[in-house]
């Protein structure tokens, strides 16, 4: 029985999760202008993949990530600013899609935390030094 199951598992076709269209032309091809390509690359490294949700679209091989890279390269080549493209994506998917968290009502603590911790550290240090001298 076990052998039979293994045999079945070997012939079973995996469920299709990918299309059979080739990747978009600019998904895996760099822009001819190195300055533009650098801009596109920098942006792609800070845009989160919607499919493999821990990766940037620069690192992901998901088809949608490829299409997002193609979209970014096309827009950069057409002269659009990286910040505008990021804003376009954030408008659709929320700041979730960006690896550069904005400073707003929900994230101020994140940005303030390092300063807060340094302040607490200084306060603790001052108190304990003062006590030792006394």
């Amino acid at each position, binding site marked *: 029985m076990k052998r039979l199951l293994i045999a079945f598992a070997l012939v079973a076709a995996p*469920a299709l999760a990918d299309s059979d269209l080739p990747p978009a032309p600019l998904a895996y091809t760099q822009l001819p202008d190195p300055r533009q390509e650098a801009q596109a690359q920098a942006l792609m490294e800070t845009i989160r993949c919607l499919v493999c949700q821990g990766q940037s679209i620069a690192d992901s091989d998901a088809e*949608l990530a490829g299409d997002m890279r193609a*979209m970014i390269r096309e827009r950069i080549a057409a002269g659009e600013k990286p910040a505008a493209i990021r804003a376009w994506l954030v408008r659709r998917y*929320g700041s979730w899609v960006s690896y550069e968290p904005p400073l707003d009502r929900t994230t101020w603590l994140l940005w303030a935390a390092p300063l807060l911790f340094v302040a607490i550290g200084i306060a603790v240090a001052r108190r304990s030094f003062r006590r030792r001298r006394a």
Partner: protein
Amino acid sequence: MNERMKWAPLIAFILLGSALTYGLAKPDDTNITSKMIGASVPSFVLSPATAGLPGLSSSDLAAGKPHLVNIFASWCVPCVAEAPQLKAIADAGVPVVGIAVRDKPEALARFLGRNGNPFRAIGADDASQVQMAFGSSGVPESFVVDGKGMIRQQTIGPINPQDVAGVIAAVKAAR
């Protein structure tokens, strides 16, 4: 330092530890909801995805009647499971239109032949550009669009049999 203050770091550590453990342990919601709900359909023009059916453009969606826009693909397995529900919704008089993501005309024709065709029009989104413009992150997803072309509701994943009545009501309400 008084006696009580001595315990403060330990208590702070336990509180932080519990908060982090809770954050790690609670089940993750991996659905990414579109932030375009309440906004107008982004402007687009898609050519017909298969022979015999018209393509789809944003102006079709702003022509006065509400629509159900189904983002799907012939290579998507849950889309097969969703087909009977889409047929039921179309049979109830709801105009269902499709956006076929990264699809081939012949593959799509086979898909419609096998699973039935609830669509009045299907646009070919060969590089997922319109899918992204809607704020959709996978297939299948469905959007209720009102007669003025405003996105009213998003369903992530297949419409299940128990969702059919709610979707029909949402489209009828979106005039």
